[in-house]
């Protein structure tokens, strides 16, 4: 039975159900229990934004607070995944990858290939991504392209609670290392979410709105901005199709190409910085595979090539807006 659930609660439920189903699933990270060893309440925080709250009471020591040692505990999660566990390690903010990136891109991502196909590394690394929280340059980035560049990693970024639950369960059951990106601005957003366990497969985009005039491709928070833009444009008689990529590696370019073959126009939206972004990747792929279908040059709407600023006035300008997306679509419609 489905009920309305926030993305935060959907993620909690996915972890809960997988820990109940599979005793080899463990969850570790900084403050994911919160209060370990402190004089007050155990499970005081349940994660810095409360995503794992309540799981300690049900699953006990299979949830482990870690010291502030990202290299050590992300590496331990990676190592444990080659030894019979399915760890879910929380990196809190994806920006912290800088501290432990070696364990992700030189170790987890490469074991299978380097060892001639003899290793499996079923580790999931959860982390918050995205701007809008006035958290400035080191807690707000959309670093997805850095991970999609690396062969061996899978990269997931849901836009809603339903997908978050299904994609997280898929990530945990998946036998490859997965970077699971949670947009903090979407934690409170609600959709219908079935109570029972289910998976959303990787590499299958979701057409969240059908339209015949232009294709808007995005993921995470940008899907919502695209929807706002599409509403506005519908009032102008422009019908947009929105493709929510859901997973960025593997990436469903077939659905994007198919959509562009119908609409003839493409706007790629990405909260990441523009160079070598997911948007640039999609624009290049479509230009190569569906050039003859294009009626106008593909457009990219991305964050600028700057760090994320602190001042609310600047941060609001940094994040791609519905207006900017609508303008980009209008540009593709110009004769």
């Amino acid at each position, binding site marked *: 039975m489905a009920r309305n659930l926030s993305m935060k609660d959907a993620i909690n439920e996915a972890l809960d159900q997988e820990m109940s189903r599979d005793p080899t699933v463990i969850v570790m990270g900084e403050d994911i229990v919160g209060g370990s060893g402190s004089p007050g309440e155990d499970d005081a925080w349940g994660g810095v934004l409360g995503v794992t709250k309540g799981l300690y009471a049900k699953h006990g020591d*299979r949830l482990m607070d870690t010291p502030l040692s990202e290299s050590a505990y992300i*590496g331990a999660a*990676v190592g*444990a995944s080659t*030894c019979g566990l399915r760890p879910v390690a929380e990196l809190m903010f994806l920006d912290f990858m800088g501290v432990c990136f070696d*364990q992700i891109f030189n170790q987890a991502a490469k074991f299978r290939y380097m*060892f001639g*196909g003899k290793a499996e590394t079923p580790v999931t690394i959860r982390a918050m991504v995205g701007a809008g929280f006035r958290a400035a340059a080191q807690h707000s980035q959309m670093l997805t392209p850095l991970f999609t560049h690396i062969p*061996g990693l899978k990269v997931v970024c849901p836009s809603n609670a339903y997908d978050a639950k299904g994609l997280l369960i898929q990530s945990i059951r998946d036998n490859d290392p997965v970077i699971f990106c949670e947009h903090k601005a979407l934690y409170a957003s609600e959709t219908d979410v079935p109570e029972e366990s289910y998976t959303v497969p990787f590499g299958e985009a979701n057409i969240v709105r059908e339209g015949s005039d232009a294709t808007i491709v995005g993921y995470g928070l940008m899907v919502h901005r695209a929807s706002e833009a599409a509403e506005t444009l519908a009032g102008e008689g422009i019908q947009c199709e929105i493709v929510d990529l859901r997973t960025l590696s593997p990436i469903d370019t077939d659905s994007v190409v198919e959509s562009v073959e119908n609409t003839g126009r493409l706007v790629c939206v990405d909260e990441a910085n523009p160079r070598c972004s997911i948007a640039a990747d999609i624009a290049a792929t479509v230009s190569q595979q569906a050039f003859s279908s294009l009626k106008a040059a593909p457009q990219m709407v991305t964050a600028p090539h700057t760090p994320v600023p602190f001042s609310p006035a600047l941060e609001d300008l940094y994040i791609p807006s519905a207006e900017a997306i609508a303008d980009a679509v209008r540009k593709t419609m110009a004769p």
Partner: protein
Amino acid sequence: MNDNVFPLGKEELLKAYHTMKTIREFEERLHVDFGRGEIPGFVHLYAGEEAAATGIIMHLDDQDRIASTHRGHGHCIAKGVDIGEMMGEIYGKTTGACRGKGGSMHIADLSKGMMGANGILGAGSPLACGAALAAKTLGHKGIGMSFTGDGASNQGTFLESLNLAAIWNLPMVFVVENNGYAESTSVDYATAVDSYADRAAGFGVPGVIVDGTDFFAVYEAAGEVIRRAREGGGPSLLECKMVRFFGHFEGDAQTYRGEGENEYNRENNDCLKLFRARVTEAGVVDGGELDAIDSEVLAAIDKAVEEAVAAPLPGAADLTTDVYVKY
């Protein structure tokens, strides 16, 4: 033959010698063949350090996991990785332990508990902590063990892992192989304390120093820290002071070494010579028995090289496989 004064039976002594000799001759052969230009890439040789890998890993079984270093051939052989597959890997052939995709620095055999040599210095410590965590969580008696050189023991990953293993009371042993040189840089220059074992106290774990050229000293010290880990006593740090017979990598001119240093080490600090002298002088093993092992090992290595040279190279179809389990 006299009574056995050693902590191992004669069969085990012969086995230890066989392992050490296999490592030595494997590396000596690579030194020659690399010099002839027959080996692609580059290799880091373990010769001179055999007593450490052998004396420590003899206490382990396949359930115990080790994370090795860039200088990993000795750990692989001691952990039971097939030398034919190792040689095939070093030659980049399909018969290699990693089908030619990893090379010398990435030889792994998870079925033997060998989690991989590693091209990133210090990266193995967190991974081995993961193995120790898995053993603890799954409730088996296996342990995790990481090897780091004196150089990589200055990495944050190593120090963070000591703390993590200590607070989680993991069944873990941190082996520091101190051969005096981080690549070309002396340990006296690069490390602020006189001994790595002293650092263990800073993490609340036991630190032990042992003469890494003395197989028996290593065997005894390793037995103690491994037993402690296996019985739930938590992690330890074991520092082996040892010598590296070759350069950091093959082709290293080693001008940073002292005059006559290598010759002195070969003469006075050769763990194989020391082992042979100990067991024969005690009258427990006959020199002829060791000579027989020498011949056997040389033949096995000749065979491994011949097979590696003859084995097929990977083809275009192999380039893009084994990236993911499923994509």
